[in-house]
């Protein structure tokens, strides 16, 4: 590889020295025999003897330094004053010819096709090898530098937060791997890159780190799938024409932007009361759901991660959240529907709960004084769901998302190809989907496994498995729907069925389950 990389240099030098043809001017037309006698060492511009008939007359073997005197003959036919090839004054021959000979010995004369990096469709004939080689070097160095840079950053992140870095590193390595493949083979790489980034993003989001950062993201699956199909289709049908490195980077930004952005803009199956300035969840905050008449329907105290949720009959309600040293509604967040971390933000307006929906609005509160509890909690890092780095990562992800969106717009504006319009369309779909989404979650149900019929008014008891004590009790509605929220941990559940005489009988006990977010996300089949 090293020798090949120098080949363009040899060729270049050959071009320069090719003009120094050895020659002897003859006095008249006719056949001549030229006898060459050299009595100097080649290092001093030593003589030559092209007596090998297989040699190119322009290529003269260099006299080995140990041979001081060479004598030989060559024949040529010239006109008067013409040039007889095969003779070169010793002082003009050595450097170029030496290099040429070395090049011939080590490199096959066949043209070298560079291991191209970019799809240079029908490269111009005049493009010389050293330019291609230079591009190769630049690309290789760029990839190396990006990899190195990425590793350096990841090392820092590791020190910064081991848990976060572990997931991010895997993600970054996977993406870089995909980029390198793409760079080596644009067409196959375009397909491959979409697969790898899709897989990497899915893995990352599904990892504990990713879940902390991005939460459970069903929309991501849709985004990843849609992007994958789009890229496959576009590449497969030849609609994509990757013509430059900038195209690759733009495409990457757009792909990653879509995937990251779509994963972030999702709802969670709980609401969070949080500090409008620091974005940290607040506890204990007291949240009340009231009818418009003022009648209180449900109340809750937020957990360490500021979480709550109300499964109440369909209707119109107002929420109120109170916390010592904080005020509601937030003036800081007035008129805003989302921020770096939360969407579906509540400001005190009337809400309509649909049938079977759980109210999970995110409620910001403005700080109005020092709160010892929040100070102590943050100092001891007692959060179980919320990550202190969540805001940091959210900003990073937002940056990637909007950079992708911006690059999609710019690319479409200046280069209105189908692929660019597809990216814009995907972004538009997610923006519209995000605007329509209210963040509401459906309650889960308890049903008969045999008939799939709901078990109405069942009592669902949640037991902390490690201590075998009752933690939470939820009562199902007439359609067997219920909702509960407990701290992350290992639990088991029992179901008590209402009997005809009004008493209850335990009909089900689950195996111990690990509720990582303290919430049941699927129906109970009894």
């Amino acid at each position: 590889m090293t020798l090949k990389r120098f080949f363009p240099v040899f060729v270049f030098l050959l071009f320069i020295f090719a003009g120094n043809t050895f020659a002897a001017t003859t006095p008249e037309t006719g056949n001549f025999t030229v006898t060459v006698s050299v009595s100097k060492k080649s290092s001093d511009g030593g003589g030559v003897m092209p007596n090998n008939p297989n040699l190119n007359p322009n290529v003269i073997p260099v006299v080995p330094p140990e041979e001081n005197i060479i004598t030989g003959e060559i024949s040529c036919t010239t006109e008067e004053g013409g040039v007889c090839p095969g003779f070169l004054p010793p002082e003009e021959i050595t450097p170029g010819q030496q290099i040429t000979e070395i090049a011939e010995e080590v490199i096959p004369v066949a043209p070298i096709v560079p291991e191209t990096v970019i799809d240079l469709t029908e490269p111009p004939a005049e493009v010389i090898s050293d330019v291609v080689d230079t591009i190769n070097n630049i690309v290789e160095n760029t990839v190396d530098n990006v990899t190195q840079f990425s590793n350096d950053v990841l090392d820092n992140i590791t020190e910064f937060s081991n848990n976060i870095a572990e997931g991010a590193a895997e993600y970054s390595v996977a993406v870089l791997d995909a980029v390198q493949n793409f760079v080596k083979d644009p067409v196959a790489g375009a397909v491959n890159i979409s697969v790898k980034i899709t897989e990497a993003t899915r893995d990352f989001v599904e990892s504990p780190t990713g879940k902390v950062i991005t939460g459970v993201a069903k929309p991501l699956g849709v985004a990843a799938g849609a992007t994958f199909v789009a890229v496959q289709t576009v590449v497969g049908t030849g609609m994509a024409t990757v013509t430059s490195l900038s195209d690759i980077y733009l495409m990457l930004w757009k792909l990653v932007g879509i995937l990251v952005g779509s994963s972030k803009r999702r709802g969670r199956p709980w609401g969070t009361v949080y500090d409008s300035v620091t974005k940290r969840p607040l506890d204990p905050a007291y949240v009340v759901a009231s009818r418009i008449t003022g009648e209180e329907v449900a109340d809750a105290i937020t957990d360490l991660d500021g979480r709550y949720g109300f499964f109440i009959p369909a209707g119109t309600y107002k929420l109120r959240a109170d916390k010592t040293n904080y005020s509601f509604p937030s003036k800081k967040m007035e008129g805003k529907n989302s921020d770096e971390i939360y969407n579906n933000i509540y400001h005190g307006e009337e809400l309509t709960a649909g049938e079977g929906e759980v109210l999970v609005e995110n409620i910001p509160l403005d700080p109005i004084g020092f709160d010892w509890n929040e100070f102590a909690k943050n100092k001891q890092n007692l959060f179980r769901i919320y990550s202190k780095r969540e805001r940091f990562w959210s900003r990073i992800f937002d940056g990637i998302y909007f950079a992708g969106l911006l690059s999609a717009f710019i690319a479409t504006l200046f280069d209105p190809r189908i692929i660019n319009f597809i990216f814009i369309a995907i972004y538009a779909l997610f923006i519209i989907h995000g605007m329509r989404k209210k963040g509401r979650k459906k309650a889960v149900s308890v049903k008969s496994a045999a008939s799939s019929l709901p078990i109405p008014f069942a009592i669902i008891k949640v037991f902390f498995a490690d201590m075998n004590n009752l933690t939470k009790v939820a009562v199902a509605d007439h359609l067997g729907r219920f909702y509960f929220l407990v701290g992350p941990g290992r639990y088991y559940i029992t179901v008590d069925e209402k009997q005809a005489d009004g008493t209850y009988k335990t009909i089900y006990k689950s195996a111990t389950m690990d509720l990582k977010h303290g919430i049941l996300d699927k129906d109970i089949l009894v």
Partner: protein
Amino acid sequence: MAKILIIEDDPLMLRMYERVFKLNKYEVEMAFDGEDGIKKLRSAEIKPDIVLLDIMMPKMSGFDALKIIKADDSIKDIPVIILTNLAGKDEAEKGLKLGAISYLVKSEHEPKEIISIIKENLEKAGKK
């Protein structure tokens, strides 16, 4: 009428529990941190039937207060229920080991549920 001493540093929580307990015909006394709680427990006038004890408090934590309560012969027999938002297994085990009769997590129990738990424990202790 049973008397409840709530040791809790958050005024909002104090007011909320006070309202709920009073609505359910309980007499309520309040202390704002561990030190204040110990002081009121030892005073001749208050003498609560049961104590609701928070853990995260300034000056003296609930765990420290519980150690002192259980080491003081004059007040060690008063049943103590821990009422906190720390939902970890370790904290729960520690609280029960120190002598609490129950460990309740605020976010997992609505105020009215806490009423029934208190009632149950008072009945066990022979007090109503």
